[in-house]
């Protein structure tokens, strides 16, 4: 069902959602960027519709809600283990179409690659998604080429319209709430973009042979292996286990998992000193092929959703969309060498 809400009614909607659950949306953190005097747009809890940033892309994705940066798994006390409590409240997450498509990727890794992940499952079951329509693409977006521009499977959509907000609701519970708040009902379809400034073409015949290209070596010098591209990526899911013990009582502590990056030193280190992919170019190749080849071979569709955040965040101005576009040249290079 579609609705038009006044700004005040939208505030009441968010407030009543926030009564029962946590409402997460992109919001402005003034002065919160890594450089001085710049704001950071990232996810945080909101209590009013006015706090939600609709006109800018969030620098970080929603993924921390489902895969927290740092998540306690259980607590140790001598021989006893106590599982970490599940959050008391469910969540409503505002996100764009690309990110909504990223949820499917998170689901496939955490729920369909081997056994279900206990901690992911218990968060995932309690999350509803509100898609924020995109009337136009941002500079670095390439969702259309990745096939993630049209939102699918959302509970509700919401975007600024007619001085208020237009909403498409597909959720019975939310429908009830909206019926009492809306100015009027009408047909609403969330906006989506049909073209982007940044275009990407992943070659059809891409194979593992592309690993042999010399172009990867360029990134040995350019990439500084900071891992920011992984941490902003809505589809990166890797983590590392960590044990933490309390200084006041060394017999009590917790095991947690923290987000990890395949670009950062130590990701492949095994006990005894072995490690794989020591060069930054090799790591760039590993990450790129995961997004554009390996994942597709395993799950049948591309991993990268084309949100372009990795391009926005890279301190060395390395463009991931450009790397994807170079895969064609690289394949040509290795095929020519093979002849």
């Amino acid at each position, binding site marked *: 069902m579609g609705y038009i809400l006044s700004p005040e009614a939208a505030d009441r909607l968010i407030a009543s959602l926030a009564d029962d659950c946590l409402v997460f949306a992109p919001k402005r953190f003034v002065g919160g960027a890594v450089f001085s005097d710049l704001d950071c747009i990232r996810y945080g809890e909101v209590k009013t519709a006015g706090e939600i940033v609709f006109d800018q892309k969030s620098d970080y994705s929603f993924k921390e809600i489902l895969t927290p940066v740092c998540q306690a*798994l*259980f607590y*140790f006390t001598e*021989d006893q*283990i106590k*599982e970490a409590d599940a959050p008391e409240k469910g969540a409503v997450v505002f996100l764009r179409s690309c990110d909504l498509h990223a949820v499917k990727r998170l689901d496939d*890794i*955490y729920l369909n*690659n*081997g*056994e*279900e*992940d*206990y*901690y992911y*499952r*218990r968060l995932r079951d309690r999350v509803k998604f509100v898609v924020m329509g995109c009337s136009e693409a941002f500079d670095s977006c390439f969702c259309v080429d990745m096939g993630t521009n049209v939102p699918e499977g959302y509970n509700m959509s919401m975007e600024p319209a007619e001085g208020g907000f237009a909403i498409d609701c597909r959720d019975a519970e939310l429908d009830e709430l909206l019926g009492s708040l809306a100015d009027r009902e009408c047909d609403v379809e969330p906006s989506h973009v049909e073209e982007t400034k940044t275009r990407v073409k992943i070659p059809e015949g891409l194979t*593992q042979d592309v*690993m042999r290209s010399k172009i990867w070596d360029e990134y040995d010098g350019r990439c500084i292996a900071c891992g920011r591209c992984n941490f902003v990526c809505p589809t990166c*899911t*890797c*983590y*590392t*286990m*960590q*044990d933490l*013990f309390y200084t006041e009582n*060394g017999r009590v*502590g917790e*095991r947690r*998992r923290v987000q*990890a990056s*395949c670009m950062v030193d130590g*990701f*492949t*280190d*095994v*006990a*005894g*000193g*072995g490690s*794989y*992919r020591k060069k930054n170019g*090799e790591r760039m190749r*590993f990450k790129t*092929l*995961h997004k554009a*080849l*390996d*994942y597709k*071979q*395993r799950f049948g569709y591309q991993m990268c959703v084309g949100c372009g955040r990795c391009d926005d965040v890279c301190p060395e101005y390395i463009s991931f969309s450009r790397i994807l576009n170079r895969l064609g040249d690289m394949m040509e290079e290795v095929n020519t060498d093979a002849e």
Partner: protein
Amino acid sequence: MLNNEYVPFLSEIKEVIKHTAMEYTFRMAYEGDIRPGQFFEVSIPKYGEAPISVSGIGEGTVDLTIRKVGAVTNEVFEKYAGDKLFMRGPYGNGFDYDDYRGKELVVVAGGTGVSPVRGVVDHFASCPDETQGLTLIAGFKSPHDMLFRDDFPRWEKTSNIILTVDADDENTGMKVGLVTEYIPGLELDAVEDAAAIVVGPPVMMRFAVKALLDRGFREENIWVSQERKMCCGLGKCGHCKVGDTYICLDGPVFNYTKGKFLID
């Protein structure tokens, strides 16, 4: 109720078998099906978890041969029989005896790489009728670094055991040389049907597989076992991913037709 795979269970150390100053086998209490080549995540609160491969399977026990090389394993070495360790698993596919039954089997293993294949060697050495002959080529750095030294005399009764060291610094009279040197001279009735297992450090595996192929082994008759960093053992943490493969889920044992495409 969904199973929480991350929560480990406590297991008692039944026995500690010391091979070298750096390598002990911890015989742990465990009831359940296990295959050689599978692994457990062994943990000590505060120090973390480490993936350790199964080096032996007994009645109500599992052997974990541990090399003292990291934060977790250093701490494990402070434990004695009667103490307990946290474990979860077993994970991974392990070796399937059916892949080797009725064939001439050659096992090439180096250093701690002997651990994951020990169960396979032990099984076929005890049941010599199940294969057309078992050869083990095991290499260690020096006589000092030898693992499972009590097993070799027993295996020798039924199988062809070639034991070699990189350097015989104590003049024990052991064979000196790399494991690969013994592959060209292997006497086999039908090399095209013979099976081989290769486990060890990456460089050793690369050259051992090459030597086996040169000797006439077919790619589909060679199996390798891979080692990578693994945090979860459940296909989630991503550390062991190579190409489209998760070593913890799809491996660690791979037929070489698949294993040869594993490029980090």
